């Protein structure tokens, strides 16, 4: 695995990353003004036990935009995403090194309270995973944990606005007390998004949120992502390049644990700089 980094290293002169010219093979055409950077990852390396999964990722994620991660499966997109809210902490034997700053705060530091961190960084998973509880309780769970909505009416309001934001309120208004697992797949996924935004996060991480859904439900989620963009910084992992092209402003292409190319979505899809990106986008591998 390790020698791959060197083998795959491409023309260094194409690299515009000034900080890490030598170690980082990445092509980045993106210039994000410092004040718009929401998350700054520097040299993030992850290993699962002996196995290295990420080889030094440098990436700036801009505020209030949608950033998508694409790449063949197993390349480390989810792994990197889980670094951003420290979900990797829960995996035995997983170690993360490097720096990740969110609004200037080092979130990998031991002092960071992961509970508060995860209240700020919501997550939506590949497979819709509502709790086997009522729709209401699904949404109310996060706020309850964080002591929000102490009175019944406050909580009702949080639940309703969250469901409203994901466009689910109309559909489930009169069955809030029925189990969330009884909804259709697309509705379940929107319920999960409502659950994530109920604690009023700043960032939403989505790991292939549509891969288990049919095209119509997918379209709805994509629409929703577009609407949420203004209020949240969104990072979405997707295996569908069309989806990345439709919903995101920036796209990062991962390959074998490396960030190969990162740029404006349009640029990545129309004029990729790296051969591997080109190959992936044109469907030659993946």
């Amino acid at each position, binding site marked *: 695995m390790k020698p791959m980094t060197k083998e795959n290293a491409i023309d260094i002169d194409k690299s515009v990353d000034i900080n890490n010219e030598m170690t980082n093979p990445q092509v980045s055409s993106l210039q994000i003004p410092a004040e718009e950077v929401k998350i700054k990852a520097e040299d993030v390396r992850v290993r699962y036990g002996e196995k290295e999964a990420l080889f030094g990722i440098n990436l700036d994620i801009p505020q209030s935009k949608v950033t998508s991660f694409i790449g063949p499966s197993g390349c480390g997109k989810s792994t990197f995403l889980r670094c951003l809210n420290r979900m990797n902490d829960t995996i035995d034997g997983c170690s993360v090194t490097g720096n990740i700053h969110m609004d200037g705060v080092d979130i990998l530091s031991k002092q960071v309270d992961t509970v508060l961190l995860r209240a700020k960084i919501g997550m939506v998973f590949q497979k819709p995973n509502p709790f*086997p509880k009522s729709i209401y309780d699904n949404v109310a769970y996060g706020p309850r944990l964080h002591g929000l909505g102490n009175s019944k009416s406050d909580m009702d309001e949080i639940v309703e606005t969250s469901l409203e934001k994901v466009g689910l309120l109309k559909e489930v208004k009169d069955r809030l007390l029925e189990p969330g697992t009884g909804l259709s797949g697309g509705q379940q996924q929107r319920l999960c998004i409502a659950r994530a935004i109920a604690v009023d996060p700043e960032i939403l991480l989505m790991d292939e949120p549509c891969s288990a859904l049919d095209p119509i439900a997918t379209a709805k989620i994509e629409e929703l992502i577009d609407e949420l963009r203004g209020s949240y910084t969104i990072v979405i992992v997707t295996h569908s390049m069309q989806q990345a092209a439709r919903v995101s402003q920036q796209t990062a292409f991962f390959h074998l644990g490396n960030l190969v190319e990162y740029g404006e979505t349009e640029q990545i899809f129309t004029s990729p700089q790296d051969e591997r990106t080109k190959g992936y986008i044109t469907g030659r591998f993946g």
Partner: protein
Amino acid sequence: MTELKESMQKAQARLKKRHAAETRFKAFGIGALVFAFLCVVMLFSSIISNGYTGFRQSYMKIDITFDESVIDPQGKRDFDTLNRADYGKIVKQSLYDFFPDVKKRGDKRTLSNLVSSNAAYTLRDMVVADPSLIGTSQSVWVMASDEVDMLIKNVFKREDDESTRPITNKEIAWVEKYESENRIETRFNTNFFTAGDSREPEQAGIRGALMGSALTMLITLALSFPCGVMAAIYLEEFAPKNKFTHIVEVNINNLAAVPSIVFGLLGLAIFLNIFGMPRSAPVAGGFVLALMTLPTIIIASRAALKSIPPSIMEAAIGVGASKMQAVFHHQLPLALPGILTGTIIGMAQALGETAPLLMIGMVAFIADVPGWINDPATVLPVQVYLWADSPERAFVEKTSAAIMVLLGFLITMNALAVLLRKKLERRW
């Protein structure tokens, strides 16, 4: 050409052999099944045919004169006097009056043995409740003795030779006189469920054993359920995966296979001798059975926890729950049906356990119904063992009846476990 033919024939022969092997295998399987089923049918039919009469008891109507000179010669009418009076004498008198011809002392003694010694208690309770009965004459239904009961239930057969049955022709004649006047009937044996153990079969009941079992199970459950579930949660979710926890895990699995009598010896050595717990008491029995049940509960609970999809935990952690909150808010409630099923099955095992309890003295003859966990007691399976060991014929039906009660509890518990699993199980 011939070669081909030969090889075809050989193939045919092999095929035939394979089919025969398959048929044989199927036949063995079905045979085993039929055999097992027959065994179960035999077991149950033997128990039920022996035991169903245990739930009925013969009663005799005798004419009683509540003689003041016997009960309360001084006319005090206070509780002590009424409670201690010699009601046995009144019962006997009633029988002598019914058969004025019986004069010989030996015959009189045999005659008075037709009714149970329990009859005196019946009279006492009547008089204590209503002292105005003194001086009156009443017809009272009292319990028949176990021999009469066996005769009525046709266990002792009248047509058999006198020498081969424990009841004489003379006694049968007396009983028949009562029968001819419709003074004998069999009723539902409530005494069986309200009385403790007794040396007299007709008076023996399973209340004491039931209470003993209930109290023992209470202790077992109170100890093994929380300990087992906590251990399972810790091992499954929080324990670091190292050599030490691995050894613990292996030993829990080993513990499940330790013969139960060993737990009894352990209980004797530790709970009785070191901690000084009372002998024959449900508290000690409960501790011993809890040790025995723990591995079952831990193993079942871990399996139940493991079966909850990790996506639920991820979801909870994703909205900011700590690991402990995620476990207690989501994983544990979802695993509860499985945990309860395992617990019920473990408890059912403990309920049927005899050997370890023999070691800590729960095998004594105890007539009193235990009131609390440190009273001497016995449990249902040990009661079965004790009665099976008694010489009187009437204990046979008691034994089978007690087995039926025990099996009833076990089947109910297992059915409950299945029902819980069916009802509360969620699918993803």
